């Protein structure tokens, strides 16, 4: 019998929560209930609306519609203080701790009147130590936060919530930053908490955690609840199907004509990447699917030259590379569409023209050590016309452009160099439909012109729709290459969740 059927007290009820950001509906009429002693897992891909929902619950965001009821009392919207007072404690993905203060100071911060003369330190210390013991949260209350590991910091965040007598704990992707052992300890803590009548919501996109440690599972997709099931009545496959959507997307792009191998990695280790073997062929789009933070950034850096291989062999056009730097990569014909166009793709306060030649000004646009501004300008004009960049002109600061137009300029900057190897890292993130189609069209055109394209994306539809070959990355490991259409979305979802790898737990 599940908790819902057992008639356990309902401690939290979300009713028809809707939140819009501009035209994007992040949460679409979401309702859910949490019972006393229950562990509820909120499951969904990135961008499904999980974090938005929890931020509404905790009062960081204001919902456009809907209401929250905690312990039978309506919760005033948009007030973290009210949520705290109602017994809701939230452990954010990014901790809110002051590094130079001690654990105890961080925990007691804001719990006492500012004007009291003493800090009641002894009593606070005793309470924290008691909580530590009761909930299995080992941490030295007198240590400075800066000296703690990530796992310990998370324990401090949980202690902070418990110290304020939280009855409902919300954890946003709590295991994203933990080692497997720390994650196991965390779930033990959560079990101790529910045994004492607390309730827990944890956000995750890791299927094995959800299956192993939750009572109820709510699946979100595109801001909607697409399934609410008792965990014991379901299995990974069903959850994966719910998470990524059952509908199959047909590959709409004609397959490429594979050419010679341009870049190969054999047994390469670099940063978080383990024993990586990968081939990028000319005339092929190689898709890399995976949940973000599993090593995609490191792989892009590796090919782009920002990260050198620590072990294994890397070959470009058959020749082993020795010193692999961004400059060597550029010289070898590697083009990059960076993941974050604001941070690493452009300089916001530079003009379009300046941004257009960021990578090539020294080689192609200088005369006797001076920049040839006339050539830069005409090059920029060419890009603007050729790649349909809507802007006031080459002298406009790039910060004024929409994401789509900024991306088109970056695209043009890369394509004009006719790269032999192109790394497109999240090339359409945050773009509207029209810009997405444009960028995809250009990627396919580059492939047809003979480039070896590596498409990194968290969007399975995008990877499946464009790629000739698909790899899945999970915890720094790379799956074997799958031909287009060889795996269903559900099967890819399982790989993304870490299943199928040789050393998978």
């Amino acid at each position, binding site marked *: 019998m599940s908790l819902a059927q057992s008639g356990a007290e309902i401690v939290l009820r979300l009713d028809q929560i809707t939140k819009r950001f501009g035209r994007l509906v992040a949460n679409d009429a979401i309702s859910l209930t949490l019972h006393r002693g229950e562990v509820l897992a909120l499951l969904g891909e990135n961008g499904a609306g999980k974090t938005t929902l929890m931020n509404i619950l905790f009062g960081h965001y204001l919902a456009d519609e809907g209401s929250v009821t905690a312990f039978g009392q309506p919760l005033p919207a948009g007030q973290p203080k009210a949520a*705290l007072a109602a017994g809701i404690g939230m452990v954010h993905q990014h901790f809110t*701790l*002051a590094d*130079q203060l001690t654990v105890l*100071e961080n925990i007691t911060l*804001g719990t*006492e009147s*500012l*004007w009291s003369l003493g*800090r009641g330190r002894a009593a606070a210390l005793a309470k924290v130590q008691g909580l530590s013991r009761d909930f299995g949260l080992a941490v030295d209350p007198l240590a400075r936060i800066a000296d703690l590991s990530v796992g310990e910091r998370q324990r401090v965040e949980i202690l902070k919530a418990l110290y304020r007598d939280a009855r409902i704990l919300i954890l946003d992707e709590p295991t994203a930053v933990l080692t497997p052992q720390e994650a196991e300890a965390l779930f033990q803590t959560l079990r101790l908490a529910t045994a004492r009548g607390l309730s827990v919501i944890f956000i995750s996109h890791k299927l094995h955690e959800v299956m192993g440690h939750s009572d109820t599972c709510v699946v979100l997709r595109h801001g909607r609840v697409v399934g609410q099931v008792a965990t014991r009545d379901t299995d990974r496959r069903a959850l994966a199907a719910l998470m990524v959507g059952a509908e199959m997307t047909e590959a709409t792009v004609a397959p490429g004509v594979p050419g010679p191998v341009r870049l190969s990695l054999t047994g390469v280790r670099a940063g978080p990447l383990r024993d990586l073997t990968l081939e990028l062929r000319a005339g092929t789009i190689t898709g890399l699917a995976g949940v973000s933070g599993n090593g995609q950034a490191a792989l892009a850096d590796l090919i782009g030259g920002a990260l050198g291989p620590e072990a294994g062999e890397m070959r470009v056009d058959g020749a082993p590379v020795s010193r692999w730097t961004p400059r060597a990569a550029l010289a070898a014909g590697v083009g990059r569409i960076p993941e974050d166009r604001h941070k690493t793709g452009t300089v916001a306060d530079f003009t379009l023209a300046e941004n257009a030649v960021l990578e090539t000004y020294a080689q192609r646009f200088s005369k006797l050590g001076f920049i040839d501004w006339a050539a830069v300008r005409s090059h920029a004009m060419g890009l603007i016309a050729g790649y349909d960049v809507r802007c006031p002109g080459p002298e406009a600061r790039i910060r004024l452009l929409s994401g789509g137009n900024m991306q088109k300029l970056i695209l043009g900057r890369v394509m004009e160099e006719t790269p032999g190897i192109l790394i497109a890292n999240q090339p359409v993130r945050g773009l509207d439909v029209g810009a997405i189609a444009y960028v995809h069209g250009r990627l396919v055109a580059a492939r047809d012109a003979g480039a070896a394209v590596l498409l990194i994306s968290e969007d399975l539809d995008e990877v499946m729709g464009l790629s000739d070959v698909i790899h899945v990355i999970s915890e720094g490991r790379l799956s074997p290459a799958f031909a287009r259409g060889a795996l269903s979305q559900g099967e890819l979802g399982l790989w993304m969740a870490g299943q199928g790898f040789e050393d998978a737990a």
Partner: protein
Amino acid sequence: MIEILISASFWAAVLRIASPLIFATMGELICERAGVLNLGIEGIMVIGAFAGWMAVYLGLPLWGGVAVAFGAGALFGLLHGVLVVPFGLSQHVVGLGVTLLATATAYFAYRLALPQVTSPPKIVPFQVWEVPVLSKIPLLGPALFAQTPLTYAAFACAGLVAFVLYRTPLGLALRAAGENPAALEAQGVSVTGVRIGAVMVGSGLMAVGGSFLTLSAFSSFFFEMVNGRGWICIALVVFGAWRPGKAVLGALLFAGFDALQIRLQQTPMGAVVPYQLFLMLPYVFSILALVVMSRRAQVPAALMVPYTKGER
């Protein structure tokens, strides 16, 4: 040299010279611990020196003068705080602006109030108060316990600042505002309120430090009397690694070199060596000490970082 170091008058002078530095350093330390660099310190010391002296000249008791100085400093602190905390303006630019404004205001008001004088008028400053019994201890007594009340107050003030910072919820909130303001705000405490409050109290202390010059060290107000002490205090905060105890130590060290150089000028060596070299001494040693001491210092993480609610 040895004779100088074992004379009670030398150590008495060290404490005396350190007093205004301690007040102002504590003031700056409070500001920076809350996350706000206050370069208004030099000007605020000038306004404190002037306001305290003027109040006493116009008939207020000496402690009334100290209070007026504190109030004047807090007022300029409010100006600095409002500009840099809610409005998030550059703390460097606003601080230098406050210094220029406060200095000019003091000089202007002085000229306005006393247009005719050629030699600065005098008041009766704080007198030495010998602590009963303790001041009778040989050497130590006359050095430590025969000072003016404001010197005792300076050391008491440092103790109080340390107590508040480390032992009270208010101090905890203040340090959190300088380390991770978001963590403070998440617990329902206003970062803006804490920071502005800290800048006002800190500026008040800076002004009291300035008033020490007119109410205790000298008996009149004249131009250029603060003479860079404010800038020294900013260095002392760094030297002290943002800790009150170490900062007091730094102030004593600087004062020690200052007292020493005056006395060295009067030795036979002073007849040969140009006196400017002696004047340089405290600064040279301060720079050296700063280099050694501040290498591992922990800067408040959110120092000079404006806090905007709701931003990540």
